[in-house]
């Protein structure tokens, strides 16, 4: 008997693909912002500007938490691989 999950997967065969692409794009976006923060912090630290360094660290830390949280939602590997194990 087919359950709801199976029906869903059959109705939307590309769902895993879309989710994976979406998560990777979001992660790349987050990392781009973090690189920008790191660059600003370095540039301002040279001028002894600690406030910017602290603000960018907080931003970068929150973004890192968001990216860890996003990783939890990565779709599971395909069933074939699980069976192999």
């Amino acid at each position: 008997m087919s359950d709801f999950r199976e029906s869903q997967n059959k109705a939307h065969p590309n769902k895993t693909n879309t989710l994976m692409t979406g998560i990777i794009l979001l992660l790349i976006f987050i990392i781009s912002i973090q690189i920008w923060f790191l660059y600003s912090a370095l540039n301002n630290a040279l001028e002894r500007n600690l406030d910017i360094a602290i603000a960018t660290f907080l931003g970068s830390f929150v973004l890192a938490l968001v990216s860890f949280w996003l990783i939890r939602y990565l779709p599971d590997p395909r069933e074939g691989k699980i069976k192999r194990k």
Partner: protein
Amino acid sequence: MKEKNQEIFSETWKDDFPIQQQEAVHVSRREFAKFLGLLSGTLALGNAGIIIKSILFPSQKLKGEHFVCNQNEVPAGGMKQFELQLDKTIPYILIHLKDGQWRAFEQKCTHLSCAVRYVPEMDKIQCPCHNGYFDARSGVVLQGPPPRPLPRLDVILKDGKVFVAEMKNKT
């Protein structure tokens, strides 16, 4: 049950060290996404490192007054290069402006650390590497790629001698 567990373990081991080269070099999107997460954490740590460094190991400030040269050694419109020994040796330039005022700036351009020089004809400080120009009175950037003004020192004149000290009022 134990045998089954062992079998699963050996299968996992084989997954990590596959025989086929194609399988060994293959990076799945799942692994790539996890790597991006790791990179994100590393960047946050890098930002924390900057704060820790600037709190625990701040750059040493100039204490007291340092003798540079006698006033008559630098004519109006002239420049003298000197070095100060802090936590590292930092090159500075002493400028005697045409109107008689004195200025001292760090010689390293804030762009890529090229040596800057005073051009009396233009009354500006020039970085010859990438054509950056700084104001000879305040050290602010007038033109070109430098992102910040030149770090400045106070110049003190005493009995015909020139001394430098840490800037008191940064404006």
